[in-house]
C-alpha cells in the first residue's frame, strides 16, 4: 500500500501521528476519570486508569519502535551514510532519515508525557 511505500509522506510522519494519538488518549482519559471522580472513590479506580495509560504508553512506544526499525531498514537499503549515486537513492535516504528523526522526537515526547504519571496526583 501507498502509505508504507518508501516515498510516502504519511509514512514519514507516522511517528508524530502515534505521539498525537497517545497524547489525546492521555488527555481524554484523565479528563473523563477526573470528571467521574475516580480519585476520590467514584465508580472507577485511579490505579486502573494509571495502569491503562502506562499500557497505552507501552503500546505507543512499541509502535514507534517498529516504525524506527522500518525506517532504519529503508535507510540501510538506500545505502545509509553512503553518498547517493542518483536522485532516487538521494530521495530514499532523505525520506528514511526524515522519518527516523521524527520517530526519535516522538519517542522523547511520548516519554515526557508519561513521566508525570509516576509522580503526580491526578485531579486537583
Amino acid at each position, binding site marked *: 500500500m501507498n502509505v508504507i511505500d518508501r516515498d510516502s509522506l504519511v509514512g514519514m510522519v507516522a511517528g508524530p501521528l502515534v505521539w*498525537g494519538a497517545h497524547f489525546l488518549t492521555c488527555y481524554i482519559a484523565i*479528563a*473523563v476519570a477526573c*470528571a467521574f471522580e475516580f480519585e476520590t472513590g467514584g465508580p472507577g479506580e485511579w490505579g486502573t486508569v494509571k495502569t491503562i495509560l502506562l499500557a497505552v504508553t507501552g503500546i505507543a512506544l512499541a509502535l514507534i519502535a517498529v516504525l524506527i526499525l522500518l525506517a532504519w531498514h529503508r535507510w540501510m537499503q538506500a545505502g545509509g551514510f553512503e553518498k547517493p549515486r542518483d*536522485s532516487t537513492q538521494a530521495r530514499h535516504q*532523505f525520506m528514511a532519515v526524515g522519518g527516523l528523526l*521524527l520517530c526519535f522526537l516522538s519517542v522523547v515526547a511520548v516519554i515526557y*508525557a508519561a513521566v*508525570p504519571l509516576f509522580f503526580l496526583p491526578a485531579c486537583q
Partner: protein
Amino acid sequence: MTFRSARDLEEADRRDPGLRQLRSTWAPPKGFARLKEINNTFIGMLYVLTGIFFFVVAGILAALIRAQLAVPENDLISADWYNQIFTMHGTTMMFLFAVPMMEAIAIFVIPQLLGARDLPFPRVSAYGYWAYLLGGLMVLTSLLFKVAPDGGWFMYVPLTGPEYSPGYGPDFWLLGIGFIEVAAIAASIELIIGILKFRPPGMSMDRMPIFAWYMLVFGFMILLGFPPLVLGDILLEVERAFDWPFYDADRGGDPLLWQHLFWLFGHPEVYIIFLPGAGVLSTVIPVFARAPLAGYVWVVLAAVGTGFLSFGLWVHHMYTTGIPVMSLSFFSAASLAVAIPSGIQVFAWIATIWSGPGVLFRAPMLYALGAIFIFVAGGLTGVMVALVPVDFQVHDTYFVVAHFHYVLFGGAVMPVFAALHYWTPLVTGRLMSETLGRWSFGLIFLGFNVAFFPMHLTGLRGMPRRVYTYPADLGWDWLNMISSIGAYMVAAGVAVFLWDWLYWHRKHGQVAGYNPWNAGTLEWHSVTPSTNFSMRSVPIVSSTYPLWDEPELGDRVDRGEFYLPDSPDERRKTLRTGSVMGEPRQVIFLPHPAWSPIIAAIGTATFFGLAIFKLWWLCAAAALVIIIAGIIWMWDAEPLPAPNRYDVGRGETLPVHINGADTHGFWAMALLLIFDAAAFVSLIFSALFLWTVNRDLSPPVPEAEPGWALAAAGLAVLASVFFRLGAFANRRGSMIGLVLGPLAGLPAMFASGGALMGSLFDAGISPTENAFSAVYWTFAGWTGFHIGVGTIFIFYTLARALAGKVTPERRQSVMNVELFWHFTTGLALVSLIMIHLWPRVI
C-alpha cells in the same frame, strides 16, 4: 545569455516570439481593469502592502499605549479607550499582520521559488486577498466609532458575552476576524497544493527549497489550527445573537469552553506565525553565509516536528484555571518537548554560518541575526513560563507581555523585515539602501530591547498587564518610562524602513540586475524585477540550490530550453508534477483575470458587515450575490481542449484535463473538507467537554421515538447511494442516470435533514434551554448548512450537465460534488449519534 539587465530582456523580446507570447499572455489588464488581475505577483504585492499597512496601524496603537503608560497616573487615554486600544493592537497584530503577512510573502515568492507560473487557484488567492483587505478594514472602522472590541485579543467570555458586552464590539471581532479566517484558509489550501503539486520537474521532496517545507507545514497548521477558533467564534456569535447558552454557566454552559477552543487555535497560532519566520531565516542565512543550509533533513524535521507538537500545548495558557494537575503536566511535557526542534533549528543556522567562508553582513542578514537573538531570549523566558509554578507567579503580569513580544518580534517581525529586504528587488528591480537598512535595523533592534527588557522587571515587580494606568512609587515608574522610549525608537526604525522601502530605493537604489545576492534558488534565475510568469521556461532541477550547482541554468531557462517556453494560444498555463518525485504529469490551464473573485469578496464582506447589525434579510441578499459570483466563477472549470494533449516543448506532450483523486481540484475539495471536519470535531469536543465539567446536568436524552432518528439516518445513506449511482451512470455515459441520481438524492437528503430536526422538535428540545440542547441544535444546523450548500452544488452540476460540460471524460466536478455529498451524509450520521445515541449510552 541570461538577461543581466532590463535592456537584454527588451532586446530578446524583439527577436524571440515565444517570449513575446508569454509576455502578452501574462500582461495584466490596463487601467481600472487592473483590479481584475489575479496573478500571484500582483496579488502578492498588494497583499504585502496591505500587511504592512495593518502593521503600521497596530504600531500606532502600540505607540498610544506606550504614551499612556510612560508616566504614572497619566490621563491621556481613558480606561475605556485603553481597553479598546490594546485589544485592537493585539488583534490587528496577530490576525491582520502576523499570519496574513506570511501568506502574502509566500503567495508572492512560492511560485517563483518553485518555478511555477502561478499558484494552483489564482482566483482563490485573489478572493482571499480582497476578503482580507475588506475584513480588516471592517474590524478597524469599529475603532473610529469607539465601538471596538475591548475584551482583550483572546476575547474571554463571559466578559465578551451578551451580558457584559451588550454593544457591537465583540460582534465586530467575531464576524470580522471570522471573515478573515476565510482568507487564511484560502491561502493555506493554495500553498499546500502549490507546494505539493506545482514544483518544477526533478524537484523531489528532498530538493525543495527549505522555505517551501516551512510553508507546507504552515498550510497544514492553518488547516487544522483555525477550525477550533472558527467554531468558537460561531458559538459565541450565536450565543450573542440568538441566546444559545454555550458559555453561560447558569444554563449548563462553561466559559472555559471558549478558552479551550481559543487556545486549541491560539497555541498553534504562535507557531503558525513563527514557522514561516524560521523559514525566512533558513533561506536568508545560507545566502549570506555563502554555504548550503547545514543539516537540511534536520531542519525539515524541526519544521514538521514543531508543527505536530505545537498542537499539544494549548492548555499551557490555562494553567491557572483549575484543570487537573495531571492534565497540566501533559501540556507542560509537550511544551518542553517542542523546545527540541526549535533548538535543532538554531544549531543548524549556527552550523551553516560556521561552515561558510565568512558572513556578509548585509541588511537581510542583520535582521536575520537580530531575529535569532531576540527569539532565543524569548524562548528562554518561554521555558520559564512553561513551568507550571512559574506561570502561577507571573501569569497576567508584564513578564508575560515581555515574553510573548520577544517571541513574536524575533519569530515574525524581524524575519518579515529580513524577507522584505531580501525579496523586494524581485518587485522593484532595485536593492534597498544598505545605509538606511543599518539605521532601521539598529533602531529597531536596540529600541526593541530597550522597550521590552525592562518589562520583565516591571512584571516581576508585580505590574499587571491590561491596566490603563498605575500609581507612582511602586518602583514601576522609570521602568515604564524606559519602555516607552524604546518603543519610540522602534517606531523611528520602522519609519526609516518605510521611507526606504516605499520611496527612496525605488528612486535611488542600486539596480539589482541579475541575482544580486548570489543566491542559489530559482526566484533569482534571471533579471529583476521578475516577470508575471516567473520563468521563461520551467526548468528541470537537480539540486536544492540549482543556481549554485548549475551556473548555466539561468541561461538555459531564459533561452527557453525547458518546458512551456511559449504560449501560441495565449492561454495562461503551468505544469503539474508528482508530489514526491516531481515528474511532469499535466499541463494546467490557469484562469485569466476576472471580476468574479472581487465581487464574491465584496459580497462576503457585505454579508459579514450586515450580520454585525443583525440585518438578516440583507444578509440573504448578499449571500445571493456570493452564490451567483461563485457560479459564474466556476462555470469555465475543467477546460477540455480537443485533442487533450498539449505540446510542452522538449518533444513531450502532456494531458490538459485529467479526472481523479490526483487532480488539484479534488485535493482542494478534500483539504476544504478536512478543515470542515476539524471544525466539526471541535464541536464534538465541545459536547464532551461540557459533559465532563457538568456532571450534575448530564445531557438530556431526547425522549422521542427512535423512529425519527433512524429515518434520518436511512435517508441520508440513501441520498449518498443515489448520488453514487448518478456519478456511476455518468461514467458509463448515461446522461439520464446522471440527472436522475442527484435529483432523487436531493429530496432524500432534505427529508433526512427534516427528520433530524423533527426528532429534536418531537422531543421538545429548544436551543435556548441549556448548553446541551444548544449543542444538539448546532449539530443539526451544521448538517443543514451542508445540505443547503450541497443543493447549490447539485443544481450547478445539473446545469453543467445540460450545457454538455459533464461527460465520462470530464467528470471532475461531479467527483468533487459527490465527495461533498458523502461528507454531508457522514455529518448527518455523526450528528445523529451525538444527539440520540451518546446521551443514552453514558
